[in-house]
């Protein structure tokens, strides 16, 4: 697929035609596209509908349902902050205030500050070592603003 411009119609077709038999379904098709390009490019909806012989509406339905799927390229660093109960009990509200002070964003649904995106998530499976944060897929336990800063630097 490297032969085509990332996200171009040809690149999309090439990813889709390489789907193994048990992944010729809407969600895996979208996941493979996101794996290849970092996001689901424009035009992918029609291509997926064509390739899998399903309606456009079904593809859009799946694309908009799942939180992980994104239609815009991700910035350099993606920070997922767990705001669920165990992390609340371990001071995530303070961490959120710290982030707001340092990066001037209120952590919400994919809020962006420069090259960093902050996203609220519910549990990262690290509930005894909270607050838990994931930076570009790397889990950070007992996270405070200092540890977060280090992790963001390392991810850049």
């Amino acid at each position: 697929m490297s032969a085509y411009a990332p996200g171009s119609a040809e690149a999309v077709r090439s990813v889709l035609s390489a789907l193994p038999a048990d992944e010729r379904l809407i969600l895996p098709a979208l996941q493979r596209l996101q794996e290849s390009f970092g996001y689901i490019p424009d035009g992918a909806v029609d291509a997926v509908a064509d390739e899998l012989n399903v309606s456009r509406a079904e593809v859009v339905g799946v694309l908009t349902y799942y939180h992980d799927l994104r239609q815009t390229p991700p910035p350099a660093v993606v920070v997922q902050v767990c705001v669920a109960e165990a992390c609340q009990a371990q001071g995530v509200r303070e961490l959120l205030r710290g982030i707001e002070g340092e990066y001037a964003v209120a952590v919400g649904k994919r809020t962006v500050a420069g090259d960093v995106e902050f996203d609220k998530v519910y549990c990262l499976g690290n509930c005894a070592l909270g607050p838990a944060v994931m930076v570009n897929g790397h889990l950070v336990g007992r996270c405070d603003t200092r540890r977060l800063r280090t992790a963001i630097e390392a991810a850049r």
Partner: protein
Amino acid sequence: MTRIYVPRDSAAVSVGADDVARMLEEALAARGASVEIVRNGSRGMLWLEPFIEVETPNGRVGYGPVTVEDVGPLLDAGLLDGGAHALCHGPVDQIPWLASQQRVSFARVGVHDPLDLDDYRASGGLRGLQRALTMPDDEICADVLASGLRGRGGAGFPAGIKWRTVMEAEADQKYVCCNADEGDSGTFADRMLMEGGPFALLEGMAIAGIAAGATKGLIYVRSEYPAAIRTLRTAIDIARVDGWLGDDVLGSGRAFDLRVVEAAGSYVCGEETAMLESLEGKRGMVRPKPPIPALQGLFGKPTLVHNVLTLSAVPAILADGAAAYQALGFDRSRGTQVFQLAGNIARGGIVELAFGVTLRELVLDYGGGTANGRPLRAVQVGGPLGAYLPGDTLDIPMDYEALAAAGGLLGHGGIVVFDDTVDMAAQARFAMEFCAVESCGKCTPCRIGSTRGVEVIDRITAGIDRDRNLVLLEELCETMTDGSLCAMGGLTPLPVRSALAHFPEDFHRAPEATEP
């Protein structure tokens, strides 16, 4: 050659285990010591992570929590011989926190390199599958039923009954689906088992497949668990090469193969029918039941759906017999439960014990109370849909029925501790907000009710028309409980109502005193 164990578990890595392993390697090379560093799973003593262990003639000696800066001084203190040091906890087998547990599902987790199949075999692995392959299918199902094993995903349904239903269903294709969505906050046992003991899960699924007549298995893992996904995929490859997954399981002529499917970030997809929709590549909408998945599940075929912990308990049941498992436990809750101590707790982690242990023993004796030493005010048991219980009524035996009688639920065994700074009105609001964000949208009480719930709680805490809004909140809870298709909308009222019942003062504070 001396062996040092440094956990590869994500929780251990999240507090520096990889850095410690790297530093150890460098320091040992510099000292010319020939030492093998094994990356094991975690023992589940998470407050001690990174917890490293050294093999000595007197058994494995543990140290923790170890930082990069500790490595040099530890080596100076004779780490390689299990030497004394402030971070030393002595022989790991004798640490009371660990030694007093009854580990069945977690027996191997933290002990071995999770991907070392020889270790797995040497410690009794694959005996269950071997035995199952010599038994008629209905006897395997009968064994699982006799063990008393109930689903660990939350509902607690007897596993053996499901197995028999799928076994007896006639179809050209059947499936075993492992629910590894582990969406409940405060729970991490599925993750630790997948990362630290994947072969037990694969073996349990193979046994289930053989018994139920299913040749294909799928493991639906949440995307928040990349390390678990990697470990499982590698473990599956190893098992295939070794011949116990694939077309001819251990030379029996029977087929069972497995595949890992990555989820895409939706809490409701942990509900089994929504998971099946998602596995079919669709929106994760909950299906009405009947039909039950055991008869019409994945792609309409009979499907055995179980949680990670349910399936991982199966190899031991088949290997050591149903009676041994059944002998553990309390009343109608048989065997062991993997409790997860989380939140503001001094000694958080994995405690696997027979059912019947009290919440007090778990939270105070094992957990050591709050981490920051403040008074313990509330405990949420069973995830985001579980009840908040007051810190002064912890004498509840932990089993399905006793918890239900106390107005709670066991769920996936998560226990989250809060100190006296917790604002229970904010926690109730959060429960409604979570439901509003994660609702699949199929039923109005869940979708709209939760959004209204947030607004009503906001009015209550703002002091607007309090009494009327409290009545309204109660009515909303009732509508959600009665009118929701699944437990998302049906149980969200549980944390809300329990907060109201046990901590009414938090809903009656002067408005400016409540957190926004």
